[in-house]
């Protein structure tokens, strides 16, 4: 038999660069990696099965626990899907507060993803700086909701707590600190020659390939697919005049820069929300009823879909979750890690697509 590759190198499931267990099998010739294959299945939780037969006040906590990084958006999409089933209207103040908390969550998720990339390319200084900034963002989340990660802030027909004048002032002060720091770190990232050597032109994915692989989120937007941002279809974001961040290079550098730019965009969205926050109630009431819906929202990593079927008392009969990372992992292994120059670039390219394995396997 003809030998086509030298060595098949496994990376993972336990690897210092991975946040979560996943395995990549790299087929190499010398140092060059020709193909990779991904192997999932190390952390299946079966959370959709646990959700069945439960009412919203139990499922919303389970939905948050699908992912430990982007927990707010899971809560938001689930609750908005239940509202869609039952025809519950949200008061405008609550809708704006949801955007504030969601954007804070997006900021901390993007900063963590960029930390992870910097750590993978061994730029530990910037990685440590970014984790420090993330703490400020988490403090703001805690100030509004009472918890840092699993916030449980949204309920059908509104949100749980209102925001006071002092909280809003403290939030804006915290955001000013984050903005100053992230601006500096973005410039550090963009101008550093060492980072450019590891990032620019590595793992390039064109717009055609991105559309073919259905890449979503910052991974898609870095390959010039701005229409994949589902915030364009969300009514509150439409009111805020949202336009997605987009870059054309499609390499590791672009993916990280898209995330840095989205952090800055989130800051301006939160400022806009706090500035335009309407007076009024934060809860409108309304009971969940029977129905069936497929609802999508934009998670920090891309398109998140919930299919829900509920009974007459609002209990979940059937639920299916599709998370963004599965598309991004496939796009990464098929179109980005394709004839890369070294095994070290495989880990950094894979991390640059921000894979969330906990979401993917649920």
């Amino acid at each position, binding site marked *: 038999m003809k030998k086509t590759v030298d060595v098949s190198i496994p990376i993972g499931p336990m690897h210092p660069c991975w946040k979560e267990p996943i395995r990549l099998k790299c087929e190499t010739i010398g140092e060059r990696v020709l193909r990779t294959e991904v192997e999932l299945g190390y952390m299946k939780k079966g959370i959709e099965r646990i959700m069945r037969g439960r*009412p919203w006040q139990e499922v919303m906590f389970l939905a948050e626990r699908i992912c430990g990084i982007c927990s707010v958006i899971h809560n938001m999409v689930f609750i908005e899907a239940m509202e869609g089933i039952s025809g519950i209207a949200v008061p405008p103040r609550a809708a704006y507060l949801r955007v504030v908390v969601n954007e804070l969550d997006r900021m901390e998720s993007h900063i963590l993803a960029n930390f992870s990339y910097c750590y993978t390319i061994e730029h530990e200084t910037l990685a440590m700086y970014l984790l420090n900034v993330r703490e400020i963002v988490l403090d703001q989340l*805690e100030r509004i909701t009472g*918890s840092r990660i699993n916030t449980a802030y949204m309920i*059908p027909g509104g949100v749980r*707590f209102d925001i006071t004048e002092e909280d809003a002032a403290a939030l804006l002060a915290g955001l000013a600190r984050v903005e100053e720091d992230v601006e500096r770190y973005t410039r550090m990232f963009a101008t550093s020659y060492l980072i450019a050597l590891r990032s620019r032109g590595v793992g390039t994915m064109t717009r055609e390939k991105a559309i073919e692989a259905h890449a979503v989120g910052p991974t898609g937007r870095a390959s010039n697919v701005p229409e994949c941002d589902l915030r364009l279809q969300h009514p509150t974001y439409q009111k805020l005049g949202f336009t997605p961040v987009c870059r054309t290079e499609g390499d590791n550098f672009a993916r990280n820069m898209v995330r840095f730019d989205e952090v800055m965009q989130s800051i301006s969205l939160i400022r806009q929300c706090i500035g335009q926050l309407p007076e009024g109630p*934060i809860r409108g009431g309304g009971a969940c009823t029977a129905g069936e819906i497929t609802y999508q929202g934009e998670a920090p990593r891309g398109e998140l879909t919930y299919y829900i079927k509920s009974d007459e*008392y*609002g209990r979940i009969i059937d639920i299916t979750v599709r998370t963004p990372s599965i598309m991004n992992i496939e796009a990464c292994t098929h179109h980005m890690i394709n004839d890369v120059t070294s095994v070290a670039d495989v880990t950094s390219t894979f991390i640059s697509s921000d894979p969330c394995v906990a979401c993917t396997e649920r």
Partner: protein
Amino acid sequence: MSESIIWYLREFLRTEWIRKFLLAKTDPLVTPPYFKDYPTLTGKECTACYQCMMICPAPGAIAVLRHDDGWRPEIYPGHCIRCGLCVEACPEDVLQSGRVLEAQHRDRTGFRATFHLSIDREICMRCGNCCISCPVGREGEPDGAVLKIEKGGVQILNSDLCTGCKTCEVNCPNRGIRVARVVEGVQEAAA
């Protein structure tokens, strides 16, 4: 290249960084007042209405128990997920956690719930655990019970007395009895 070096020099010669380098100090480890910790008792009297048990999303996290000096909710920290829903649901302000109680009084928010009992006759093996465990109507009046074994099966006598506490559901060996809790988050209009 020169641009990059200038950036790095500027980065490390910032006064803030030099000050931090010389006078590095860890922030004091204090819990902020807005942190939602495990619910604690405020000292007000519990009326055993079981609203906290009704809304609790975590199995086995809260139980309203009778002590010598009256009823009291007890939190099991290993099971509690610190969501603060019991604090919001309690009509007597018995529990508190972080700023939840304060925010609830300020915003005049709360929950409204209705309950629907259903028994799956095919699964029910008529053991009577649900009737025995149900905490409603235990004090004297036999007519005030929600469930009773009658005519060879569990009968729902007074479904309007149900408090939705899920005790029957938890104690059923086969999950034959189900309590549907339809909860709405409501807010009173500002006075």
